């Protein structure tokens, strides 16, 4: 028994050094040497100041911007210090109210858009930080953004296309549009 206790404590200590200290340190060093930008959060810079991460979404509700997924984080949407989904069940009245509110907000800013609204635009993402929307959800908003920015729809579509990524290797995952990078590019455009 005593022998087991001694071996347990010693083994725990040694395993802690190997798997809890050496292993994360080796990964950190390799990551810093080979993928320095990605290892620290894929930050985006403008004039030397960090203005976001290409992997983390930001909240948008100004009609001149493309809007991302609804976010259920608290106390504000897209709180990247406390990720969270809504965790509402499929029949929860709170879910249906939230979806209805997002549908109405979209309709209010673009009342005569005849298309039906793509589901990802009115449902909260799992992380609350989803940086993407589907190409269909971007297409739904092209009319509104073009009008607000006095651009033609095809000009806006070209921006969307530049920030759309297809399936990885052609088959993996789903096509998606990076909302923050798209909006940054639109803002940078010479009027």
């Amino acid at each position, binding site marked *: 028994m005593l022998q087991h*206790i001694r*071996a347990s404590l010693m083994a*725990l200590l040694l*395993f*802690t050094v*190997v798997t*809890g200290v050496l*292993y*994360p340190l080796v*990964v*950190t060093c390799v*990551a810093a040497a080979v993928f320095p930008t990605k290892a*620290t*959060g894929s930050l985006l810079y403008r004039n030397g100041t*960090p*203005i*976001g*991460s290409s*992997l*983390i979404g*930001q909240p948008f509700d*100004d009609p001149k911007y493309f809007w991302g*997924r609804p976010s259920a984080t608290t106390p*504000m949407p*897209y709180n990247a*210090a*406390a990720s*969270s*989904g*809504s*965790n*509402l*069940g*499929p029949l*929860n009245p709170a879910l249906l109210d939230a979806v*209805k509110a997002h*549908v109405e907000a979209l309709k209010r800013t673009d009342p005569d858009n005849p298309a*039906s609204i*793509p*589901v*990802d635009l009115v*449902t*909260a*993402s*799992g*992380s609350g*930080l*989803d940086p993407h929307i*589907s*190409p*269909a959800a971007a297409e739904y908003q092209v009319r509104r953004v073009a009008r607000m920015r006095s651009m033609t729809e095809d000009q806006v579509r070209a921006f*969307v296309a530049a920030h759309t990524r297809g399936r*990885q290797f052609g*088959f*993996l*995952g*789903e*096509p*998606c549009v990076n909302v*923050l990078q798209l909006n940054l590019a639109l803002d940078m455009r010479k009027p």
Partner: protein
Amino acid sequence: MTNNGFIQIAIYLGVLLLLVKPLGTYMARVYEGKSIGLDRVLGPLERLMYRLCGVRADQEMTWKSYAVALLIFNFAGLLAVYLLQRTQAMLPLNPAQMPAVSPDSSFNTAVSFATNTNWQGYGGESTMSYLTQMLGLTVQNFLSAATGMAVLVALIRGLARRSAQTIGNCWVDLTRSTLYILLPLSLVLAVVLVSQGVVQTFEPYHTVSLLQPAKDANGALVTEQTLAVGPAASQVAIKQLGTNGGGFFNVNSAHPLENPTPLSNFLEMLSILLIPAALCYTFGRMVGDTRQGWVVLAAMTIVLVGLLVPCVVLEQAGNPALKPLGVNQTALDTPPQLTQSGGNMQGKEVRFGIVNSAIWATATTAASNGSVNSMHDSYTPIGGLVPMWLIQLGEVILGGVGSGLYGMLAFVIIAVFIAGLMVGRTPEYLGKKIEAFEMKMASLAVLVPCTAVLVGTAVAVSLPQGASSIRDPGPHGFSEVLYAFSSAGNNNGSAFAGLSANTPFYNLALGLAMLVARYWTIIPVLAIAGSLAAKRTVPIGAGTLPTHTPLFVVLLIAVVVVVGALTFIPALALGPIVEHLMLPR
């Protein structure tokens, strides 16, 4: 289901099954003490560890000694994680200045990580310091996984040996599992994950300015965003490979910095089932008949695919309650503009869509992993029933590393016993007579987790402390509690996370369920190992039921499914099944 959906499922299962034989062969060599190449590099470290621990690698243990050593070792790990959380405010590597975790939450998390459950009552980026994540959680990710593998190897030795008193040395099995299997795989996976954008840094959280300022819940203006980062990749790799599942961040692998791209998602999903599947082949090799391993893997795979398909189909069909709101849930695949995965996207990420979310939900609950890349709580009723029932089947459909296969071998013992009753012969498995002691122990291993789930749920919904945490009205609220106890009572760790489970009641009740489920499976399984090792083999006769045939696959599936159905359908009827009937037509 879309064509691309079929392709993604086929490639996932195809790659998984292709890796079974090479990895399974390698692991068999690790446990048989043969030369594996890597031991030339890590051999000195392995021998140094034995010397410092005062362990003689060639000294084998009886099953009782093996069990006692494992339990003490697990308890020491549990205590270390508890103390780390309670003292993290005074320790280094805490850039976000996290305070000490509450005693009940620390207990729950310590139990959870020591038992390979990795239920998260806390939010990683808002609770744990970098030091706790590394020294506490990452270490237990390795060691709880190694514990499961050690118990399995001991059981395999029990089946393979004859007239033996010992079942191996637990320190050797733990050390070799960690150094030669879990560590090298994790190193490679972690670096590949960083290449996709998973963070791995000791820098403090970043602050960036928002492009469009937003308002918080009180109407105050927010102009900045705090980006939580940390040494995530090293932890994510082992939490997937060791079927642990405790995320670095609160939303686990739905978080873009924990799972940024479809490729990172594919590799993380593959890692969930990789070792559990390959261990089936290891088992076959070590008992000298690889067909026995393939039979078990075939039974597991058939149930997995059988449940994966309805999950994908129902999630793709979408939430009928949203139809009247003018929302388009149809899958569209006309590039460039008209493309969307459609379906029930609440709680799912666009880059994964429906198919990769549903594959993950199925794989993570078939295995006792419990990591998520979408929120199971927001699944359609039957889409969410699939992960819940996969957990309730006892985590034997591939299951946890080691624990899945030793759980399944308990079902195998029950299956040969039932077959023996049908033909009126003494049941045998791999030449060993299955007698009353083995049957009692196998029944314990199968029934104790079931009891923990049902009794736990009944107590929780009856007490105000349990019922007050329920947030969803109607049957879905009951489903949340049932899922929580299913998850803890089978060491899975995923959740219907709408339940506010970080309360003293749930922290203690779920902690107890995890302890009972883990160790009251491990002890009976080691007892079976010891008892079988001591037996002589009986020659194969005309009355022996062959256990390498398709017939046996069917029999094994039937036993698993019938036990799972009889035990849980009444409870499921009160939750997801009623909810399904309430959906608008």
